[in-house]
């Protein structure tokens, strides 16, 4: 595989090197965003791209860093086009670096074609609205924050929380959702999985690799790895390379593709580093003002389009620094993605797995993916009732902490019992437990049946008649 498919203009010598940025003079016609190949004095090659092109100079960003470059003996070749990576179905089952080069010791897979890693903007008119749910077998997601095929639903997590396990469980259990009462569902061969790691620890990458192997999924997984000790700037390419393959598989090969990206916070820090070196005016916490547009150029590469059966579904994972959801990275992400799954340290400390904090979690596309003919007719109202009741539990708990549980009204005591059952029986499930949507919904009814019937105003009379079963 060669990156240098089109030879281009060559310049010898640099005029300035600062961090990952390089300025070269005297090229005349460098194209904005085009790729450069830099050869250092010892003959080593590395890639970069043009950040700014002027008549008399160009600013370059060098992906693998600038150490070892010299002003005099370094050569820069302009390749005349944005970065392209090879794509093919044979890339599944393999491990790559951020440039799409194999790093698993095997020869490069045969490229079907080379695609621009920046992708292309999907015409909104050509999108198909996602409304087919993806069963994850995790109650807190399937019932309350249903993931829909073609959705981008991130996991907002904190350092030390079990997001890796949750992501691995979702990948292992994911199947195309079926309405209750219909067969199928376990059709796991439908999905290809693209895994993009940005600035991730070796242990974590190994964990995923082993999990994929253990569950027999590795043959349909392509991994793009930029580990914690790899050059930070290359992180800006990792998700783009991964999504380029995902789009190829989905839109040119008709596959359903699930993309897991981890950790977007590391990505944004690389973005900040470049912005800082360029002396740009920062927006919040030093992050550049264009971080929204930049993240959108990743997250929006999701969805379904007409004329192809394939889809791209994204589960980006990002660590909230200091568990702060208003930090710019989760904040900007939340504005672009279609909801978020928020993990809670409090629940994790109570040994609840997965520790999904349902109140700040949300799936925007859920409403069209559930209900009659999708999951079950009572699902939307049941989810709404579970939410409302659990929200009330929080009020009751704070009241109980002041006046004591014994002083609570009879109804509020029942809410407390509901709250405990909700966390211990509904949220909590085994890492290997794959709950069907029916099991999950029935469990939900068991829980609301703890409460008096006239408290359940979000459920219709017919639904209550059919499913409400208070303990005698």
């Amino acid at each position, binding site marked *: 595989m060669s990156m240098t498919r089109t030879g281009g203009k060559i310049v010898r010598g640099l005029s300035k090197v600062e961090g990952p940025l390089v300025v070269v003079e005297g090229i005349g016609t460098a194209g904005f965003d085009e790729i450069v190949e830099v050869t250092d004095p010892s003959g080593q090659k590395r890639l970069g791209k043009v950040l700014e*092109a002027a008549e008399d100079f160009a600013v370059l960003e060098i992906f693998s860093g600038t150490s070892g470059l010299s002003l005099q003996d370094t050569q820069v070749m302009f390749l005349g086009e944005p970065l392209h990576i090879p794509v093919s179905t044979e890339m599944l089952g393999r491990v790559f670096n951020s440039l799409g080069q194999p790093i698993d010791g095997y020869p490069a897979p045969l490229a079907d074609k080379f695609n621009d890693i920046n992708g292309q903007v999907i015409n909104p008119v050509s999108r198909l609205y996602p409304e087919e749910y993806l069963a994850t077998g995790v109650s807190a997601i399937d019932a309350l924050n249903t993931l829909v095929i073609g959705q981008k639903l991130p996991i907002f997590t904190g350092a030390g929380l079990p997001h890796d396990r949750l992501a691995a469980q979702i990948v292992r259990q994911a199947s195309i959702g079926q309405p209750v009462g219909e067969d199928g569902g376990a059709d796991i061969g439908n999905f290809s999985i693209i895994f993009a790691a940005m600035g991730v620890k070796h242990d974590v990458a190994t964990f995923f690799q082993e999990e994929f192997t253990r569950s027999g999924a590795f043959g349909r997984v392509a991994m793009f790895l930029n580990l914690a000790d790899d050059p930070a700037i290359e992180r800006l390419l990792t998700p783009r390379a991964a999504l380029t393959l995902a789009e190829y598989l989905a839109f040119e090969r008709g596959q359903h593709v699930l993309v897991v990206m981890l950790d977007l916070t590391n990505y944004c820090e690389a973005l900040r580093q470049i912005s800082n070196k360029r002396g740009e005016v920062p927006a919040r916490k030093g992050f550049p003002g264009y971080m929204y547009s930049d993240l959108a150029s990743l997250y929006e590469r999701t969805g379904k389009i007409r004329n192809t059966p394939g889809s791209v579904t994204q589960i980006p994972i990002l660590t909230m620094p200091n568990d702060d959801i208003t930090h710019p990275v989760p904040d900007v992400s939340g504005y672009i993605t279609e909801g978020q799954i928020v993990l809670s340290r409090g629940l994790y400390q109570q040994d609840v797995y997965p520790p999904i904090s349902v109140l700040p979690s949300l799936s925007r596309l859920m409403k069209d993916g559930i209900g009659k003919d999708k999951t079950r007719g009572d699902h939307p109202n049941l989810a709404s009732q579970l939410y409302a009741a659990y929200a009330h539990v929080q009020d009751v708990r704070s009241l109980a902490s002041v006046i004591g549980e014994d002083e609570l009204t009879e109804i509020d005591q029942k809410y407390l019992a509901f709250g405990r059952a909700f966390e211990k029986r509904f949220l909590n499930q085994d890492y290997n437990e794959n709950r069907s949507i029916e099991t999950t919904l029935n469990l939900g009814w068991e829980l609301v049946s703890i409460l008096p019937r006239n408290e359940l105003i979000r459920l219709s009379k017919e639904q209550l008649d059919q499913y409400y079963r208070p303990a005698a």
Partner: protein
Amino acid sequence: MTDAIGVVSRVNGPVVHARGSMQVRMGELVGVGEDHLVGEVIGLNNDIMTIQVYEETSGLTPGSPVFGTGAPLSVELAPGLLGGIFDGIQRPLTVIEAKFGEFINRGIQLPSLDREKKWHFVPSAAVGDSLEGGATLGSVQETILVNTKTMLPPDVKGRLAWLAPEGDYTIEETIARLDDAGQQREVSMLQRWPVRFPRPIKERLEKNTPLITGQRILDSFFPIVKGGTAAIPGGFGTGKTITQHQIAKWADADIVVYIGCGERGNEITEVLQEFPKLIDPRNGRPLIERTVIIANTSNMQVAARDASIYTGITMAEYFRDMGFAVAIMADSTSRWAEAMREISGRLGEMPAQEGYPAYLSSRLAEFYERAGRTRNLNDTEGSVTVIGAVSPPGGDFSEPVTQLTKQYTRVFWALDKSLAAARHFPSINWLTSYSEYIDSVSNWWRSHTNQDWRSIRARAMELLTEEDHLNQIVRLVGPDALPDEQRLVLETAHLLTTGFLQQNALDPVDTYAFPEKQIAMLKLILRFHERAEAIVKHGAVITDVQKLPVIHDLLRMKADVPNDNLALLDKIGQDLEEQMDKLEARYK
């Protein structure tokens, strides 16, 4: 676009510098590079022009030509807008799909409106009359729902020498000839207008008719008038977009212009998929027939967000000039402000707050001031209502865009994260939101519902405010410590918040409430309070009141009573009186 007027000297993302002609004008539309990427001149310094480019500049090299057009960035205004979907610079996205497939390429040059399609023109002006700019020539039934006027461009006037007979014409065919002091002018249905300039009017009029949205918390508590301005600020997940969609669907505007500015692609798709199917409750026609959609999603070129706002408001003014009540939704104005920040940063301008340029304030002011109810050049009366969503970082309303928007809008619908987390939608906080139009719309309510809306609203707000105060005590000592009269306030406030303010956009009945239903519901809840208060004063315990079966009906009436069968509310009213009578009898 044939003459090269300059040569690109520097490319920095969407900002391009070019060296060339000194005749190029500020604001001129230019084509950049061999692909003719659409750009606008935003700065001139000797022979260097600064161009904001509305398409991806990847691959553009210094030395590429720049082509002039001699005209400012403009939109095409003619039949064909309604039901259409355009990008920020008014390129027709449906045509782009048909010609170029599912992905948007660069350098696509297509007319915004169909040049082949024939529209049935019905003349109405009289030949020989002397016409001023903006005068009505005739009309076209553009969709079954909307009959649009064909008007003279605002800057054309003269004696009408010839008017086309009734018949089918394309938008470029001449339909009228005027004699302006000896100068012949030919006019077609198509006119162009530079987006950065408001279309002229005769005068601004008083605003006192509410824009009815069918959303109870908006209409009954924080109303907006036709021609007014509103801001919807809210952190992510608080329901800005759903609120905007609900207004776009149900507002009693004649025309809706929906601008998706820097937001999600799937949201636009949802609108496109839903609006042709949704039926307007007032006239039985699909909502898409009165809607224009501008889609500039977050992954499209950033500078075009700026254009999308101006494109949308100019279209709104064009429909206003025909005498329509137009509502324009911009989701989200924060993305527009961020686009300004990004361009400003690349220009090396000195930032004001949080990196935003100092002119952010005046840009927002200019935009919101294009709202209003007006007497138009042709003496029709129209209005443009502007509703802007704001996306404050971290949900913090003290940030510059929210604060500046507050300065130039008169209704503030504050979305609240804790309400959203409890799935109370619309999550509009009733204590921090406000409307400056309460006085203006009181008469409308009186004449349309025969009810003293003003004092009913005031009483409900009073109870909600008291609840907030009482809740602070409850949080410390629990509800049992309160006297029963105050616990009744909590009970009634619960009916107001859950039974009235909370509204389910997905429920077929609850999604939209007629004003008559809204006020009847409010009256029932207040009546409940009035009766119960008297009984509690007589010594009834609050738990007796809480056990009344009518409470469940009051909580469910929003979804159980359809707009076309309000008699069911009377039935609930009767039950209420009977149950209260019975309870009262026990304590007399």
